[in-house]
């Protein structure tokens, strides 16, 4: 393999892992599910963006953020504001007392569009905001925290407070944010109806493509020299600092990158699900996203996707049949994963699966000898 593919996929095993996941997401799931279920999977995949960001931030840089829902929400709100403005053109809102503004503003006796909504009439600006707003917030927060060497539990608590602040703040300003109900009734993207099944198929595949884009980008970053520094940092931060690296800059960068990836996830969520509300921003979703990453294996980018899909399918399965048991199961999962499986599903693969596959391969080879099978690589 040449260096580029090596850096994007790791070893041959990593390439195979990516291909298997791509096969599942592109062929198996769309082939076997109706559009309702597939749309659900698409929704879960948008959480996987956040989980991928957390793998970088938590698994590789050793910084646990309990407020990633904030960035997901910011990306989502940026997209939803654009879609809402498109859906509230003066003709379709002519029954309102002020036509041309979103319906919830009209209900709250607001008569003109607030200034911060105005630029969201432009699609290029909205796209720009989806990427930049999370990054800017992450940059400010990261600079303030990491430059002063705040990390670990403090950082987790402060990001959690941020999630609470944002969800309460959105909730409390109903007139300009849509309040607790969020921004609903989104219809078209640049004139293209996003509610049809056809559109949902396209959006699903777009999410898959973007998710792979983000995974490969993350892989690229982690396989660079920077990835090695991050890894070293999460093990012995002081030594890295004493070797002359400015540890905080690396942390700030990775925090911003994770925020941007989460924001993209949020925007895709809005497109597929058709609404956004503060309940997706607060403490609970933010910490649930951590468990998605933990179940998959906090160091494994692909594991994050599997973890997200498994936990969410489990959640919808459980909460449909045994709503009482769901919280017990979820709580148990938190404890079980953390105490017994700190490297999640990816850890299981590394400890057992890989050996099992190698043994199977060996047995196969003894029957049909082939000369050029290389040993499995290190990176999953």
């Amino acid at each position, binding site marked *: 393999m040449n260096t580029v593919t090596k850096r994007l996929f790791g070893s041959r095993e990593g390439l195979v892992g990516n291909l298997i996941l791509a096969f599942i997401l592109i062929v198996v799931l769309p082939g076997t599910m109706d559009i309702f279920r597939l749309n659900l999977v698409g929704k879960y995949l948008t959480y996987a963006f956040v989980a991928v960001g957390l793998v970088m931030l938590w698994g590789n840089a050793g910084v646990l953020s309990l407020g990633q829902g904030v960035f997901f929400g910011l990306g989502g709100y940026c997209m939803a504001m654009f879609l809402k403005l498109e859906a509230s053109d003066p003709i379709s809102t002519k029954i309102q007392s002020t036509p041309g503004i979103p319906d919830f503003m009209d209900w709250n006796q607001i008569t003109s569009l607030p200034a911060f909504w105005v630029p969201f009439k432009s699609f290029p600006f909205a796209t720009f905001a989806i990427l930049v707003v999370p990054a800017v917030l992450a940059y400010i927060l990261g600079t303030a925290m990491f430059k002063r060497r705040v990390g670990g539990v403090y950082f987790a608590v402060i990001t959690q407070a941020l999630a609470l602040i944002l969800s309460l703040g959105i909730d409390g300003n109903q007139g300009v944010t849509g309040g607790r109900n969020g921004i609903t009734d989104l219809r078209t993207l640049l004139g293209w109806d996003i509610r049809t099944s056809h559109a949902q198929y396209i959006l699903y595949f777009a999410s898959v493509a973007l998710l792979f884009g983000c995974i490969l980008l993350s892989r690229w970053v982690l396989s660079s020299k920077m990835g090695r520094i991050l890894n070293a940092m999460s093990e012995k931060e002081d030594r890295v600092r004493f070797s002359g690296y400015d540890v905080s800059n690396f942390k700030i960068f990775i925090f911003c990158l994770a925020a941007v990836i989460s924001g993209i996830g949020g925007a895709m969520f809005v497109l597929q699900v058709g609404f956004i509300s503060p309940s997706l921003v607060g403490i609970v979703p933010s910490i649930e996203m951590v468990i998605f990453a933990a179940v998959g294996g906090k160091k494994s980018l692909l594991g994050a996707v599997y973890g997200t899909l498994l936990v969410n399918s489990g959640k919808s399965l459980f909460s449909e049949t045994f709503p009482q048991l769901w*919280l017990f199961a979820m709580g148990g999962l938190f404890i079980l994963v953390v105490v017994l499986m700190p490297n999640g599903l990816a850890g299981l693969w590394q400890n057992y699966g890989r050996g099992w596959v190698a043994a199977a391969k060996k047995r196969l080879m003894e029957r049909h000898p082939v000369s050029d099978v290389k040993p499995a690589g290190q990176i999953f």
Partner: protein
Amino acid sequence: MLLAYTSSELTSIFTMQGFAGLSLFSVLLLMALGLAIIFGQMGVINMAHGEFMAAGAYTVYLCSTLTTRFAPSFQSYYFLIAIVTAFVVAASLGLLVEWGLIRFLYKRPLDTLLATWGLSLIMQQAFRSTFGAREVTPTLPDWLMGSFKPTESIDIPINGVFVMGLTLFITALVLFFTFKTRAGLRMRATVQNRVMSSAVGINTKLVDRLTFAIGCGIAGVAGAAFTTIGSTGPDSGSRYIVDTFLVVVFGGTASLLGTMASAFGIAQTQSISEFFLQGTMGKVATLLAIVIILMIRPQGLFASKVRRA
């Protein structure tokens, strides 16, 4: 917005909101004392701390129900016993949790955070399955009801005064325990230098366990105090948990004085701003102010000068 009121109205508003803030301060301080003991001193963060508080509150509710059913004449005194029971129940739960879960995680603070979050989900659902999703209120003894009126427009509830007294008492007890007893000395020694304490013969594992149990027990008392000013639901605890974390972090860890000062500041700011800003925005403004201050001064109000590894 301040201009819309006359000065005597403003005095009354500040007195009453200030007093409401004192009740919030009491609950926050009791919660934060327990959490600060656990977090500041063992580096373990307990996300299920709010649920230990709820456990205390439900214990009081149970005691109240049992008293009403079996010993109605005892009604006016049960509350004092219920507070002690709440402490014992929450502390025993804490002991169990430390033994079954926390002790495996001492070297991994971030993992502790996630595991205790899982624990909090389980405990919340357990409360919901046992006591129902509806909020419950214990029957309070008569002497806790009512209020006095020092002036025409000021109204001070007695339960608030009681909660405050209880808080002061518990705080004094914690300070006494930490600084004046052998067990407190062992606890402080373990915090400062675990290996050395162990070398001079302190059973640090036992100290950890007791510290955790006492922290949880105080949360139970906070729950008992909470029942006098609000009703208890399965998620009552989780509503206070972020505030409590912020109190501990804002106060500066390993500083009980800082915890008190920050609990007071946060509760008062929140209570007074809630009157002038609508709805939840008072809370948002308070939390935002704390986060911004913490970004400028991450070590909190009262930082210990000792450099930690």
